[in-house]
Structure formats: C-alpha cells, structure tokens
C-alpha cells in the first residue's frame, strides 16, 4: 500500500485516497473554439510516463482536497515533500 503525503494532513495510507490522473491537464478555456485534435488530447491523451509522473490525488476519505504529487512510476516512490496544494 502506498503512503501518500497529503499536503494538508500529512502522510496517509493509500486507502484514504483516490487517484485522479495526470496533473496539469487543464480544461480548455473555450471548449467550443477547440479543434478536434486538441479536444481529443484533452479528453484522452495522457503522458503515461514511465518515470517521474506529475499526477493528481484526492484525499477523498480525509480532507477531501485534490492535490498534485510527483511519483516515479517505475518504483511507486513519491518525491518527498513535493506534494502541492
């Protein structure tokens, strides 16, 4: 089980969290003006990084906040203290 550092509550067990996918995938400001390819990228394309991955977690069964974290997907180790609100 992963121990995940919630930036509000500190290190907590994975059971309290829900994974929320790659970080920094911003919803286009004006979706109607977004082309098909750009919209497809927003909907479906993710880096699926093998290595250090910027991702979102939600401390769903804790403080309920979403936050960003860096995790190495080849070791599942989080970069310590790099969780950001």
């Amino acid at each position: 089980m992963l121990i995940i550092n919630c930036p509000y509550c500190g290190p907590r067990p994975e059971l309290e969290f829900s994974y929320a996918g790659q970080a920094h995938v911003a919803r286009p400001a004006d979706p109607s003006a977004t082309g098909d390819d750009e919209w497809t990228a927003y909907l479906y394309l993710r880096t699926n990084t093998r290595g250090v991955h910027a991702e979102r977690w939600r401390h769903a069964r804790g403080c309920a906040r979403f936050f960003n974290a860096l995790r190495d997907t080849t070791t599942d180790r989080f970069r310590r203290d790099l969780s950001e609100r």
Partner: protein
Amino acid sequence: MADATIRRIVGLPTAAWLESPLPATRFILRGAPGARAAAGEGFGLSLPETACRAATDGNRAALWLGPDEQLLLAPDGEVEPIAASLARALQGHAYSLVDVSHRQVGIGIHGPRAEWLLESQCPLPLNLRDFPVGMCTRTVFGKAEIVVWRPAEQVFRLEVWRSFATYVAELLREVDRESIA
C-alpha cells in the same frame, strides 16, 4: 421537543465499551478562510485552524475535516438557534452551512481496548504519539468512511453516516468477540 415522540434513532448494538449513538446537532461549515474566524464568534468557540484538530468548549465542538470544511457538534435540538447565530456572525462572508444532524450518528468507544479495537480495521496508527488527544480526521474503518476524534486518552468518538453505522458497530463487536474468545 414536540418531535421527540416520533423520532426513531438508529438502533445499534451496545457493549460496556461501546456507546449507543446520541442525537446531536450537526452542521457542515464550508467556506473561504475568513469565514472560519467569523463562524467562531457565532458558534461560541474558536474553530480549529490546525489540520486534523478539534476545538471544544463545554458541550460544543468543532472538528477540522478539511481546509475548507468543519464539522460543528452541539447538543440535540439546537439547529435553529445555531443556524441563526452563525448567519448573523457570517454576514458578508462567502460560506455554506448545511444541517447534517440526521446524516450521521455518533458512536462512542472507550476503555483500555478502544485504541486497539479501532486500529484493527482502521489504517491509521492510533497510538498517542501519532494520534494525540484532540486529534480528529476523516478516515476509513473496514469498508466504511468514518470521522474519528479522540477527546480523551481512552475515549474515541466516531461520526458515521447513518446507513453505515450498523456495519461499523457490528464490525467493532466482531473484532472484540473474536479477540477475547
């Protein structure tokens, strides 16, 4: 109260160490940081600013559940006065106050085995160093979400959504039964 006769609280198994739920007044307060300080004036106690800590004064308590979420606890039957008092204190602030008195029930666990019983199905370490008196948090117990608060060294109070309360109480009793058998 006129409604007491028709009220039917969730019936849970009890034990020497397991307190049946008592009705209470409960609110979820959410809002911008400024609202927290103002709400303290209306509620009559300073709302905790530290993560995962509870503040108490007399029979009222405020539990930090998240940076923008507090659970306010008071004796049963105070929904209207507290709502009114908070509305006055919070005038001009951006916030949300929602009555959740019946959404969840409180379960009390106390005694020397309380910590051990809870830890059996809760992934958090509940020893006094990691979970000191005054700490509170949302977490899980078995497959249920709970709020756990430690008002005293050998006393825990759980706040559980009502339809999960039977599960939590029965699971606690099962752990107890198996461990002393």
